[in-house]
Protein backbone atom coordinates (compact mmCIF):
# COMPACT_ATOMS: atom_id res chain seq x y z
CA UNK A 1 0.00 0.00 0.00
CA UNK A 2 1.63 3.25 -1.04
CA UNK A 3 0.05 6.62 -1.56
CA UNK A 4 1.52 6.97 -5.03
CA UNK A 5 0.48 4.00 -7.13
CA UNK A 6 1.94 5.31 -10.38
CA UNK A 7 5.40 4.10 -11.43
CA UNK A 8 7.39 5.36 -14.37
CA UNK A 9 8.57 2.05 -15.85
CA UNK A 10 7.29 -1.54 -15.88
CA UNK A 11 10.47 -2.55 -13.98
CA UNK A 12 9.70 -0.04 -11.21
CA UNK A 13 6.07 -1.18 -11.08
CA UNK A 14 7.17 -4.75 -10.34
CA UNK A 15 10.22 -3.94 -8.18
CA UNK A 16 10.25 -6.04 -5.00
CA UNK A 17 7.38 -8.29 -6.06
CA UNK A 18 9.14 -11.03 -8.05
CA UNK A 19 10.67 -14.20 -6.62
CA UNK A 20 11.22 -17.83 -7.62
CA UNK A 21 8.36 -20.33 -7.21
CA UNK A 22 5.67 -17.67 -7.00
CA UNK A 23 2.15 -17.86 -8.49
CA UNK A 24 1.30 -15.21 -11.08
CA UNK A 25 -2.04 -14.52 -12.76
CA UNK A 26 -1.88 -12.89 -16.15
CA UNK A 27 -4.87 -11.38 -17.99
CA UNK A 28 -5.61 -11.87 -21.65
CA UNK A 29 -7.36 -14.22 -24.08
CA UNK A 30 -4.86 -15.61 -26.55
CA UNK A 31 -2.64 -12.56 -26.94
CA UNK A 32 -5.56 -10.11 -26.79
CA UNK A 33 -5.37 -7.84 -23.74
CA UNK A 34 -2.22 -9.40 -22.30
CA UNK A 35 0.09 -7.39 -19.99
CA UNK A 36 2.95 -7.66 -22.50
CA UNK A 37 5.27 -5.07 -20.97
CA UNK A 38 4.95 -6.54 -17.46
CA UNK A 39 5.57 -10.06 -18.80
CA UNK A 40 8.80 -8.79 -20.36
CA UNK A 41 9.93 -7.66 -16.89
CA UNK A 42 9.38 -11.18 -15.57
CA UNK A 43 11.41 -12.53 -18.50
CA UNK A 44 14.27 -10.15 -17.78
CA UNK A 45 14.13 -10.85 -14.03
CA UNK A 46 14.92 -14.51 -14.63
CA UNK A 47 12.69 -15.75 -11.78
CA UNK A 48 12.00 -19.46 -12.14
CA UNK A 49 9.70 -22.22 -10.97
CA UNK A 50 6.65 -20.07 -11.69
CA UNK A 51 3.03 -21.22 -11.49
CA UNK A 52 1.11 -19.26 -14.09
CA UNK A 53 -2.66 -18.79 -14.10
CA UNK A 54 -3.81 -17.65 -17.52
CA UNK A 55 -6.47 -18.72 -19.99
CA UNK A 56 -3.73 -19.55 -22.51
CA UNK A 57 0.07 -19.94 -22.53
CA UNK A 58 0.46 -17.05 -24.99
CA UNK A 59 1.84 -17.63 -28.47
CA UNK A 60 5.32 -18.62 -29.60
CA UNK A 61 7.41 -15.52 -28.94
CA UNK A 62 4.45 -13.52 -27.59
CA UNK A 63 3.31 -12.86 -24.03
CA UNK A 64 3.67 -15.77 -21.62
CA UNK A 65 5.10 -17.81 -24.50
CA UNK A 66 8.41 -16.04 -23.82
CA UNK A 67 8.50 -17.37 -20.26
CA UNK A 68 8.03 -20.95 -21.46
CA UNK A 69 10.79 -20.50 -24.03
CA UNK A 70 13.06 -19.24 -21.23
CA UNK A 71 12.07 -22.26 -19.05
CA UNK A 72 10.86 -20.11 -16.16
CA UNK A 73 7.54 -21.96 -15.76
CA UNK A 74 6.90 -25.02 -13.57
CA UNK A 75 3.11 -25.19 -13.91
CA UNK A 76 0.33 -23.68 -15.99
CA UNK A 77 -3.29 -23.43 -14.86
CA UNK A 78 -5.27 -22.66 -18.02
CA UNK A 79 -8.30 -23.58 -20.12
CA UNK A 80 -6.76 -23.92 -23.59
CA UNK A 81 -3.17 -24.34 -24.72
CA UNK A 82 -3.57 -25.55 -28.27
CA UNK A 83 -1.98 -22.87 -30.36
CA UNK A 84 1.52 -22.71 -28.86
CA UNK A 85 3.84 -25.31 -30.41
CA UNK A 86 6.80 -24.67 -28.10
CA UNK A 87 4.60 -24.99 -25.03
CA UNK A 88 3.09 -28.20 -26.45
CA UNK A 89 6.57 -29.66 -26.80
CA UNK A 90 7.48 -28.85 -23.16
CA UNK A 91 4.13 -30.20 -21.98
CA UNK A 92 4.47 -33.50 -23.87
CA UNK A 93 8.05 -33.85 -22.60
CA UNK A 94 6.79 -33.47 -19.03
CA UNK A 95 8.86 -30.33 -18.47
CA UNK A 96 5.81 -28.26 -17.62
CA UNK A 97 2.87 -29.38 -15.49
CA UNK A 98 -0.54 -28.37 -16.80
CA UNK A 99 -3.92 -28.16 -15.08
CA UNK A 100 -6.74 -27.77 -17.60
CA UNK A 101 -9.95 -26.06 -16.44
CA UNK A 102 -13.16 -25.42 -18.32
CA UNK A 103 -12.87 -21.75 -19.29
CA UNK A 104 -15.93 -20.68 -17.32
CA UNK A 105 -14.80 -22.63 -14.27
CA UNK A 106 -11.39 -20.96 -14.50
CA UNK A 107 -13.00 -17.51 -14.73
CA UNK A 108 -15.39 -18.27 -11.86
CA UNK A 109 -12.61 -19.70 -9.66
CA UNK A 110 -10.67 -16.46 -10.11
CA UNK A 111 -13.75 -14.34 -9.48
CA UNK A 112 -14.45 -16.42 -6.34
CA UNK A 113 -10.86 -16.07 -5.15
CA UNK A 114 -11.19 -12.31 -5.35
CA UNK A 115 -14.64 -12.22 -3.75
CA UNK A 116 -13.90 -14.30 -0.64
CA UNK A 117 -15.70 -17.43 -1.87
CA UNK A 118 -13.45 -20.42 -1.08
CA UNK A 119 -15.55 -22.92 -3.05
CA UNK A 120 -18.67 -23.17 -5.21
CA UNK A 121 -20.71 -25.81 -7.00
CA UNK A 122 -21.02 -25.82 -10.78
CA UNK A 123 -22.67 -28.17 -13.25
CA UNK A 124 -19.77 -27.65 -15.65
CA UNK A 125 -17.63 -30.76 -15.93
CA UNK A 126 -19.95 -33.04 -13.94
CA UNK A 127 -19.55 -36.61 -15.22
CA UNK A 128 -16.25 -35.78 -16.96
CA UNK A 129 -12.58 -36.13 -16.07
CA UNK A 130 -12.76 -32.63 -14.61
CA UNK A 131 -14.88 -33.94 -11.72
CA UNK A 132 -12.41 -36.68 -10.76
CA UNK A 133 -11.22 -36.34 -7.17
CA UNK A 134 -13.55 -33.43 -6.44
CA UNK A 135 -16.59 -33.52 -4.13
CA UNK A 136 -19.88 -33.66 -5.99
CA UNK A 137 -23.46 -32.99 -4.91
CA UNK A 138 -26.86 -32.98 -6.54
CA UNK A 139 -28.82 -29.72 -6.90
CA UNK A 140 -32.07 -29.33 -8.83
CA UNK A 141 -31.79 -32.93 -10.02
CA UNK A 142 -28.36 -32.52 -11.62
CA UNK A 143 -24.90 -33.51 -10.39
CA UNK A 144 -22.56 -30.60 -9.63
CA UNK A 145 -18.83 -30.36 -8.94
CA UNK A 146 -17.27 -28.42 -6.06
CA UNK A 147 -14.59 -26.09 -7.42
CA UNK A 148 -12.18 -24.01 -5.32
CA UNK A 149 -11.52 -20.27 -5.47
CA UNK A 150 -8.17 -19.40 -7.01
CA UNK A 151 -5.72 -16.74 -5.83
CA UNK A 152 -2.19 -15.71 -6.74
CA UNK A 153 0.76 -13.89 -5.21
CA UNK A 154 0.68 -11.40 -8.06
CA UNK A 155 -1.83 -10.44 -10.77
CA UNK A 156 -0.74 -8.68 -13.94
CA UNK A 157 -3.43 -6.87 -15.90
CA UNK A 158 -3.58 -4.85 -19.07
CA UNK A 159 -6.07 -1.97 -19.27
CA UNK A 160 -6.83 0.61 -21.89
CA UNK A 161 -6.90 3.62 -19.54
CA UNK A 162 -6.12 4.11 -15.89
CA UNK A 163 -6.26 7.09 -13.56
CA UNK A 164 -3.78 7.87 -10.80
CA UNK A 165 -6.12 6.30 -8.20
CA UNK A 166 -5.84 3.00 -10.11
CA UNK A 167 -9.37 3.04 -11.56
CA UNK A 168 -9.28 1.10 -14.84
CA UNK A 169 -11.21 1.02 -18.13
CA UNK A 170 -10.80 -1.73 -20.71
CA UNK A 171 -11.26 -1.73 -24.49
CA UNK A 172 -13.58 -4.21 -26.24
CA UNK A 173 -12.62 -7.90 -25.93
CA UNK A 174 -9.23 -6.98 -24.44
CA UNK A 175 -11.17 -6.89 -21.16
CA UNK A 176 -11.58 -10.71 -20.79
CA UNK A 177 -9.81 -12.14 -17.71
CA UNK A 178 -8.23 -8.85 -16.61
CA UNK A 179 -10.97 -7.54 -14.26
CA UNK A 180 -11.49 -10.76 -12.25
CA UNK A 181 -7.73 -11.32 -11.99
CA UNK A 182 -7.25 -7.76 -10.69
CA UNK A 183 -9.27 -8.80 -7.63
CA UNK A 184 -7.66 -12.15 -6.88
CA UNK A 185 -4.02 -11.63 -5.88
CA UNK A 186 -2.06 -10.36 -2.90
CA UNK A 187 -0.64 -7.67 -5.18
CA UNK A 188 -2.07 -6.37 -8.47
CA UNK A 189 -0.01 -4.43 -10.99
CA UNK A 190 -1.66 -2.88 -14.04
CA UNK A 191 -0.15 -1.65 -17.29
CA UNK A 192 -2.33 0.94 -19.01
CA UNK A 193 -2.09 2.34 -22.51
CA UNK A 194 -2.99 5.82 -21.30
CA UNK A 195 -2.69 7.28 -17.79
CA UNK A 196 -4.98 10.17 -16.88
CA UNK A 197 -5.47 12.32 -13.74
CA UNK A 198 -7.91 11.10 -11.11
CA UNK A 199 -11.38 12.50 -11.85
CA UNK A 200 -11.08 12.03 -15.62
CA UNK A 201 -13.51 9.10 -15.72
CA UNK A 202 -17.28 9.07 -15.30
CA UNK A 203 -17.47 7.04 -12.05
CA UNK A 204 -20.36 5.01 -13.53
CA UNK A 205 -18.04 3.73 -16.29
CA UNK A 206 -15.19 2.41 -14.13
CA UNK A 207 -14.79 -1.36 -14.50
CA UNK A 208 -11.99 -2.00 -11.98
CA UNK A 209 -12.14 0.33 -8.96
CA UNK A 210 -8.73 1.52 -7.74
CA UNK A 211 -8.97 -0.49 -4.53
CA UNK A 212 -7.89 -3.55 -6.52
CA UNK A 213 -4.80 -1.95 -8.07
CA UNK A 214 -1.60 -1.58 -6.03
CA UNK A 215 0.63 -0.14 -8.73
CA UNK A 216 0.23 0.98 -12.32
CA UNK A 217 2.42 2.09 -15.19
CA UNK A 218 1.69 3.71 -18.56
CA UNK A 219 3.08 1.68 -21.46
CA UNK A 220 1.57 3.51 -24.43
CA UNK A 221 -0.22 1.93 -27.37
CA UNK A 222 2.12 -1.01 -27.70
CA UNK A 223 2.43 -3.02 -30.88
CA UNK A 224 -0.32 -5.62 -30.55
CA UNK A 225 -0.11 -9.04 -32.17
CA UNK A 226 -3.06 -10.58 -34.06
CA UNK A 227 -3.20 -14.41 -34.10
CA UNK A 228 -5.91 -14.91 -36.75
CA UNK A 229 -6.22 -12.02 -39.19
CA UNK A 230 -9.65 -12.65 -40.75
CA UNK A 231 -11.15 -10.06 -43.11
CA UNK A 232 -13.94 -9.78 -45.68
CA UNK A 233 -13.79 -8.14 -49.08
CA UNK A 234 -14.76 -4.51 -49.12
CA UNK A 235 -17.84 -4.09 -51.33
CA UNK A 236 -17.01 -2.05 -54.39
CA UNK A 237 -19.92 0.33 -53.80
CA UNK A 238 -18.45 1.25 -50.41
CA UNK A 239 -15.26 2.60 -51.99
CA UNK A 240 -16.17 6.26 -52.08
Amino acid sequence: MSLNKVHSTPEAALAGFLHDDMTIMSGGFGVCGIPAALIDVILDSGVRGLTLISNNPGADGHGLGKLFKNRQVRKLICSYAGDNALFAQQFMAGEVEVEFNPQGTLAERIRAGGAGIPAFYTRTGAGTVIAEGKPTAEFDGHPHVLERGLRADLALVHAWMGDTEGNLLYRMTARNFNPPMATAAEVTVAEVETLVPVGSFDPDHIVTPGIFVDRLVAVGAINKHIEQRTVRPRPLAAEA
Partner: protein
Amino acid sequence: MPWTRQEMAARAAEELRDGFYVNLGIGIPTLVANCVPPGMRVQFQSENGMLGMGPFPYEGEEDADLINAGKQTITSLPSTSYFDSASSFGMIRGGHIQLAILGALQVSARGDLANWSVPGKMIKGIGGAMDLVAGVRRVIVLMEHISKGEIKIVEQCSLPLTGVEVVNKIITDLCVFEVGPGGLVLTELAPGVTEDEIRSKTGTPFATQLH
Protein backbone atom coordinates in the same frame (compact mmCIF):
# COMPACT_ATOMS: atom_id res chain seq x y z
CA MET B 1 -25.85 -36.51 -52.15
CA PRO B 2 -24.52 -35.23 -48.81
CA TRP B 3 -25.19 -31.66 -47.80
CA THR B 4 -22.31 -29.25 -48.37
CA ARG B 5 -20.88 -27.33 -45.42
CA GLN B 6 -22.96 -24.34 -46.51
CA GLU B 7 -26.10 -26.47 -46.70
CA MET B 8 -25.36 -27.94 -43.27
CA ALA B 9 -25.03 -24.41 -41.85
CA ALA B 10 -28.28 -23.42 -43.56
CA ARG B 11 -30.05 -26.44 -42.05
CA ALA B 12 -28.71 -25.54 -38.59
CA ALA B 13 -29.89 -21.94 -39.12
CA GLU B 14 -33.47 -23.28 -39.32
CA GLU B 15 -33.15 -23.85 -35.55
CA LEU B 16 -32.76 -20.10 -34.94
CA ARG B 17 -35.73 -18.14 -33.63
CA ASP B 18 -36.42 -14.44 -33.55
CA GLY B 19 -34.76 -12.81 -30.54
CA PHE B 20 -32.45 -15.75 -29.79
CA TYR B 21 -29.03 -15.31 -28.19
CA VAL B 22 -26.73 -17.92 -29.70
CA ASN B 23 -23.19 -19.22 -29.25
CA LEU B 24 -21.45 -20.79 -32.24
CA GLY B 25 -18.46 -23.12 -31.90
CA ILE B 26 -15.47 -23.01 -34.22
CA GLY B 27 -15.47 -24.82 -37.59
CA ILE B 28 -18.70 -25.41 -39.51
CA PRO B 29 -20.86 -23.81 -36.76
CA THR B 30 -19.27 -20.41 -37.49
CA LEU B 31 -20.87 -20.51 -40.95
CA VAL B 32 -24.36 -20.39 -39.36
CA ALA B 33 -23.84 -16.67 -38.70
CA ASN B 34 -24.14 -16.02 -42.45
CA CYS B 35 -27.44 -17.92 -42.73
CA VAL B 36 -29.71 -15.89 -40.43
CA PRO B 37 -33.02 -15.44 -42.31
CA PRO B 38 -33.69 -11.84 -43.37
CA GLY B 39 -35.71 -9.90 -40.80
CA MET B 40 -34.86 -12.29 -37.98
CA ARG B 41 -32.94 -10.75 -35.09
CA VAL B 42 -30.34 -13.08 -33.57
CA GLN B 43 -27.44 -11.96 -31.35
CA PHE B 44 -24.28 -14.03 -31.32
CA GLN B 45 -22.30 -14.33 -28.11
CA SER B 46 -18.55 -14.76 -28.11
CA GLU B 47 -17.50 -16.30 -24.80
CA ASN B 48 -14.33 -14.21 -24.54
CA GLY B 49 -16.62 -11.33 -23.54
CA MET B 50 -18.94 -9.98 -26.23
CA LEU B 51 -22.59 -10.04 -27.14
CA GLY B 52 -23.62 -8.88 -30.61
CA MET B 53 -20.75 -10.18 -32.75
CA GLY B 54 -20.44 -8.60 -36.19
CA PRO B 55 -18.82 -9.94 -39.39
CA PHE B 56 -15.08 -9.99 -40.19
CA PRO B 57 -13.64 -6.49 -40.67
CA TYR B 58 -12.75 -5.02 -44.04
CA GLU B 59 -9.09 -5.48 -44.81
CA GLY B 60 -7.03 -2.85 -43.03
CA GLU B 61 -9.67 -2.36 -40.34
CA GLU B 62 -8.66 -5.29 -38.12
CA ASP B 63 -8.37 -4.37 -34.45
CA ALA B 64 -6.20 -6.52 -32.15
CA ASP B 65 -8.54 -5.69 -29.25
CA LEU B 66 -11.60 -7.12 -31.01
CA ILE B 67 -11.49 -10.88 -31.53
CA ASN B 68 -13.88 -13.80 -31.16
CA ALA B 69 -13.40 -16.99 -29.15
CA GLY B 70 -11.60 -18.49 -32.16
CA LYS B 71 -9.14 -15.56 -31.93
CA GLN B 72 -10.29 -14.23 -35.32
CA THR B 73 -10.60 -10.49 -35.89
CA ILE B 74 -14.25 -9.43 -35.97
CA THR B 75 -16.38 -6.27 -35.75
CA SER B 76 -19.05 -4.86 -33.46
CA LEU B 77 -22.71 -4.03 -34.12
CA PRO B 78 -24.93 -1.23 -32.74
CA SER B 79 -26.29 -3.73 -30.19
CA THR B 80 -22.85 -4.87 -28.96
CA SER B 81 -21.84 -5.00 -25.33
CA TYR B 82 -18.52 -6.10 -23.80
CA PHE B 83 -17.98 -7.78 -20.43
CA ASP B 84 -15.34 -9.79 -18.58
CA SER B 85 -14.82 -13.56 -18.76
CA ALA B 86 -16.47 -14.29 -15.40
CA SER B 87 -19.59 -12.37 -16.45
CA SER B 88 -19.54 -14.04 -19.86
CA PHE B 89 -19.60 -17.53 -18.39
CA GLY B 90 -22.13 -16.44 -15.77
CA MET B 91 -24.34 -15.66 -18.77
CA ILE B 92 -23.59 -19.08 -20.28
CA ARG B 93 -23.83 -21.16 -17.10
CA GLY B 94 -26.91 -19.26 -15.93
CA GLY B 95 -28.97 -20.44 -18.88
CA HIS B 96 -29.35 -17.07 -20.59
CA ILE B 97 -28.24 -18.32 -24.01
CA GLN B 98 -30.97 -20.13 -25.90
CA LEU B 99 -28.89 -22.13 -28.32
CA ALA B 100 -25.33 -23.39 -28.82
CA ILE B 101 -24.22 -24.98 -32.09
CA LEU B 102 -21.00 -26.94 -31.59
CA GLY B 103 -18.69 -29.35 -33.34
CA ALA B 104 -18.00 -32.85 -31.95
CA LEU B 105 -15.56 -35.74 -32.04
CA GLN B 106 -18.21 -38.18 -30.77
CA VAL B 107 -21.86 -38.01 -29.73
CA SER B 108 -23.63 -40.86 -27.95
CA ALA B 109 -27.17 -42.17 -28.24
CA ARG B 110 -28.14 -40.46 -24.99
CA GLY B 111 -26.59 -37.11 -25.97
CA ASP B 112 -23.19 -37.38 -24.31
CA LEU B 113 -20.68 -35.18 -26.10
CA ALA B 114 -16.93 -35.62 -26.56
CA ASN B 115 -15.19 -32.77 -28.32
CA TRP B 116 -12.01 -31.83 -26.51
CA SER B 117 -9.38 -34.53 -26.37
CA VAL B 118 -8.13 -37.71 -28.00
CA PRO B 119 -5.99 -39.98 -25.80
CA GLY B 120 -2.45 -40.22 -27.10
CA LYS B 121 -2.69 -36.96 -28.97
CA MET B 122 -1.59 -33.60 -27.60
CA ILE B 123 -4.37 -32.19 -25.42
CA LYS B 124 -5.13 -28.73 -26.72
CA GLY B 125 -7.39 -27.89 -23.81
CA ILE B 126 -11.03 -27.57 -22.92
CA GLY B 127 -11.84 -23.94 -23.66
CA GLY B 128 -15.49 -22.98 -23.18
CA ALA B 129 -17.16 -26.17 -24.46
CA MET B 130 -17.86 -27.81 -21.08
CA ASP B 131 -19.47 -24.61 -19.79
CA LEU B 132 -21.55 -24.20 -22.94
CA VAL B 133 -23.02 -27.71 -22.82
CA ALA B 134 -23.64 -27.42 -19.07
CA GLY B 135 -25.39 -24.05 -19.26
CA VAL B 136 -26.97 -23.41 -22.63
CA ARG B 137 -30.63 -24.44 -22.84
CA ARG B 138 -30.41 -26.22 -26.19
CA VAL B 139 -27.28 -27.75 -27.72
CA ILE B 140 -27.03 -28.77 -31.36
CA VAL B 141 -24.07 -30.67 -32.74
CA LEU B 142 -23.15 -29.77 -36.32
CA MET B 143 -20.49 -32.06 -37.82
CA GLU B 144 -19.50 -34.44 -40.61
CA HIS B 145 -21.32 -37.75 -40.07
CA ILE B 146 -18.07 -39.74 -40.11
CA SER B 147 -14.47 -38.58 -39.97
CA LYS B 148 -11.79 -40.32 -42.06
CA GLY B 149 -13.91 -43.48 -42.04
CA GLU B 150 -14.38 -43.41 -38.30
CA ILE B 151 -17.88 -43.51 -36.81
CA LYS B 152 -18.65 -40.50 -34.60
CA ILE B 153 -22.27 -41.19 -33.58
CA VAL B 154 -21.89 -44.02 -31.09
CA GLU B 155 -23.62 -46.09 -28.43
CA GLN B 156 -21.16 -44.88 -25.77
CA CYS B 157 -18.42 -42.31 -26.22
CA SER B 158 -14.92 -43.77 -25.95
CA LEU B 159 -13.25 -40.35 -25.85
CA PRO B 160 -13.13 -38.15 -22.73
CA LEU B 161 -16.53 -36.49 -22.26
CA THR B 162 -17.36 -32.81 -22.51
CA GLY B 163 -20.79 -33.31 -20.98
CA VAL B 164 -23.31 -36.01 -20.07
CA GLU B 165 -26.77 -36.02 -21.73
CA VAL B 166 -26.35 -32.52 -23.09
CA VAL B 167 -26.97 -32.75 -26.86
CA ASN B 168 -30.52 -32.14 -28.11
CA LYS B 169 -30.01 -32.55 -31.87
CA ILE B 170 -27.35 -33.73 -34.31
CA ILE B 171 -27.06 -32.26 -37.80
CA THR B 172 -24.55 -33.93 -40.13
CA ASP B 173 -23.82 -33.80 -43.84
CA LEU B 174 -26.11 -36.85 -44.23
CA CYS B 175 -29.03 -36.44 -41.87
CA VAL B 176 -30.64 -34.96 -38.75
CA PHE B 177 -31.13 -36.84 -35.47
CA GLU B 178 -33.22 -35.73 -32.53
CA VAL B 179 -31.84 -36.95 -29.21
CA GLY B 180 -34.89 -38.24 -27.37
CA PRO B 181 -35.34 -39.90 -23.99
CA GLY B 182 -35.26 -43.33 -25.71
CA GLY B 183 -32.23 -42.56 -27.86
CA LEU B 184 -31.74 -41.17 -31.37
CA VAL B 185 -34.59 -40.46 -33.77
CA LEU B 186 -33.75 -39.94 -37.44
CA THR B 187 -35.93 -37.08 -38.68
CA GLU B 188 -34.37 -35.92 -41.97
CA LEU B 189 -32.15 -37.26 -44.73
CA ALA B 190 -29.97 -35.32 -47.14
CA PRO B 191 -31.14 -35.71 -50.78
CA GLY B 192 -30.44 -39.20 -52.10
CA VAL B 193 -29.16 -40.51 -48.75
CA THR B 194 -30.88 -43.70 -47.58
CA GLU B 195 -31.73 -44.93 -44.12
CA ASP B 196 -29.48 -47.92 -44.81
CA GLU B 197 -26.51 -45.65 -45.51
CA ILE B 198 -27.15 -43.87 -42.17
CA ARG B 199 -27.40 -47.23 -40.42
CA SER B 200 -24.06 -48.31 -41.88
CA LYS B 201 -22.37 -45.10 -40.75
CA THR B 202 -23.92 -44.85 -37.28
CA GLY B 203 -22.67 -46.83 -34.28
CA THR B 204 -25.95 -47.07 -32.42
CA PRO B 205 -29.52 -48.13 -33.26
CA PHE B 206 -32.01 -45.32 -33.87
CA ALA B 207 -35.71 -44.88 -34.48
CA THR B 208 -36.95 -43.24 -37.65
CA GLN B 209 -39.64 -40.56 -37.90
CA LEU B 210 -38.93 -38.78 -41.16
CA HIS B 211 -40.91 -35.63 -41.80
